[in-house]
């Protein structure tokens, strides 16, 4: 589904991604861990098509097709979703208005008819129920004045509405309380199928107790330096990153 081939990327002439190789098949969940500043969010942004980075070499293939020249919205239309580490605020635009606009833009791009107001609302209600969200959320300004946890839950709500093929969750667990973590993880699990895939970026093994990954990768200095199964996350939790850093030297 998603294939990243020897990807090198820089910002302001500073190389941040240093040869990433990653292949994700439908139905898989890949966890990416790694110390602060190792390039996890950069990788997410580059996959999503942020134009602030220079792609030095390598390729990103989505369903076998290179998406490097596609603008972010086209990647979104293909089914790529990024749950942001720091979701932005858009004052004056309600959550429901935003999601309605987004969903209909994607449907339009796929040649589908736009969803009317009442089926839309019904769908929103369903998804909100799974995520144990209050209805009042819909009429609030997007992310404005949201608590950290509310912002993250709102990201997952959007993901649930847009039903992407490939979702990247960048530290969605940070800022969530214990109950919210479980609820959000349930939300993700509810979407899991053999037709979609997830990249879960996290610092904590705890999330991976709920969303059980097929693979765990360690990103360090813009490179995947170690890959394994879910037991790798447990080992990292115990031992930290020092041993990996040492292995690199």
């Amino acid at each position, binding site marked *: 589904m998603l294939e990243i081939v020897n990807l090198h990327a820089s910002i302001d002439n500073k190389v941040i991604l240093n040869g990433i190789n990653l292949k994700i098949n439908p139905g898989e969940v890949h966890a990416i861990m790694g110390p602060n500043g190792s390039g996890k969010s950069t990788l997410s942004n580059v996959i*999503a*098509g*942020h134009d*602030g980075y220079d792609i030095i070499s390598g390729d990103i293939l989505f369903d076998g097709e290179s998406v490097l020249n596609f*603008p*972010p*919205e086209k990647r*979104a*239309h293909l089914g790529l*979703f*990024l749950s*942001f580490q720091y*979701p*932005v605020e*858009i*004052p*004056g*635009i309600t959550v429901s208005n*935003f999601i309605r*606009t*987004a*969903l209909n*833009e*994607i449907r339009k*791009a796929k040649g589908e008819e736009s969803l009317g107001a009442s089926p839309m609302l019904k769908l929103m209600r369903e998804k909100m129920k799974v995520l144990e969200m209050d209805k009042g959320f819909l009429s609030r*300004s*997007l992310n404005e004045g949201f608590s950290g946890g509310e912002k993250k839950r709102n990201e997952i709500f*959007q993901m649930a509405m*847009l039903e992407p093929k490939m979702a990247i969750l960048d530290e969605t667990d940070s800022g969530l309380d214990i109950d919210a973590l479980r609820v959000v993880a349930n939300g993700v699990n509810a979407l899991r199928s053999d037709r979609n895939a997830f990249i879960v970026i996290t610092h904590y093994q705890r999330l991976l107790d709920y969303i059980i990954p097929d693979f765990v990768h360690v990103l360090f200095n813009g490179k995947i330096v170690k890959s394994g199964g879910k037991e790798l996350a447990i080992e990292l939790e115990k031992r930290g990153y020092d041993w990996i850093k040492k292995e690199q030297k």
Partner: protein
Amino acid sequence: MRLRRKLFIVSDNDKIIDEVTSSDYKYGFSTEIDSDTIEPGLSEDVIRQISLKKDEPQWMTDWRLDAYKVWKEMDEPDWANVSYSKPDFQNISYYSAVKKKQYDSLDEVDPELLKTFEKLGISLDEQKRLSGVAMDIVVDSVSVATTFKKTLKEKGIIFCSMSEAIKEHPELVKKHLGTVIPKSDNYYAALNSAVFTDGSFCYIPNGVRCPMELSTYFRINEAGTGQFERTLLIADKGSYVSYLEGCTAPQRDENQLHAAVVELIAMDDSEIKYSTVQNWFPGDSNGKGGVFNFVTKRGICETQAKISWTQVETGSAVTWKYPSCILKGDNSIGEFYSVALTNNFQQADTGTKMLHLGSNTKSTIISKGISAGKSHNSYRGLVRMGPRAKNARNFSQCDSLLMGDKCGAHTFPYIEVKNSTAKTEHEATTSKIGEDQIFYCQQRGLNPEAAIALIVNGYCKDVLNQLPMEFAVEAQKLLAISLEGSVG
């Protein structure tokens, strides 16, 4: 031509029960051809001729002549933060019933214009009407309009052209015309007073709540009122009226200079809501052409009355406009909600004046400026608390949104407080649309233009919310269209 493109019938329980496409037939695109034009230039003689052609009573002619004398003594103001080459007033024809170009089919109309119509969601018939294509299908809006006129009449509401009012209701016109904006008020108001061609007149009787949004559309009897429009709206004690002016469809006009005057009179316990969408031709992307729009709008509030101005300004090359409120009566309320968008080489200097005379008067100013391209957008506002304005309150919020780094936003707030119990609050912000906001929207499937439109609409929400629903939807689309090409 300034008319609303849709007609809303609002029943007593405020429900929109119908919506009808308007027809052009009364505007006579295909029938009357008015060749009446007075030679360019301005003199007492020209004014007499205008008055004569309009078949006006002597008092009106005298009123105009008086205004002309005042105007001659005045200088064109240059304090606004705009620059343009001054119009040559001797090169303007002050009375002309210029007919728009007549087309046989839409194929002959500028495709750019048609594209815009499409984006605004304007129906084919409507497109024809707006661009001046001869239409033979008479949409059945005539009967609807007649029904409206009947309803209004039953309530004792007078809604007609200024010319008609001068003839049919001289006592009302004589009593109120020029009382809020005297002839000597400013250069353009004086000019307008001398040469105004037509406009709307409206009177809502004591205790009557006008059951529908009044729009200039209803003035089915008159031709386009042209460059010197004059509007007078009187809400008698305890009455209510909501009035819509303008049109979201782009309006091209042969006349470069527009100097309208709008006077509102809100008597005790009455309320006037005045909404405008202004979309005159702004000039091309190189700054050529475009309308100069110098408007004087002011209302007076008696005891416990309320006037609310809402405007969405996207057009004109140069705009100079300050809808204001004189809060004369105790407990009266003035509101000003404005979105002014400038792109390319447009210049706008707009704002309001809230003059608090009475005690416990309240005013709210919400101004949202959006500048893109190489445009300049200024907010100029005066809040004056007079010596008798005990416990008067004002809240002002002036926000500027910049798109790109070649445009300018300027804020000139003036505050004068002569009563120690009066309070004013002023908040101002300047922001840019964040790249991260655009990226976020793009990640969710919106292209950059849609993203900007969304963000801008969110930014303008407090103002757009003041507009009648359907008008607000059109205004949103209009903002998006006006910003096209400003991304990147």
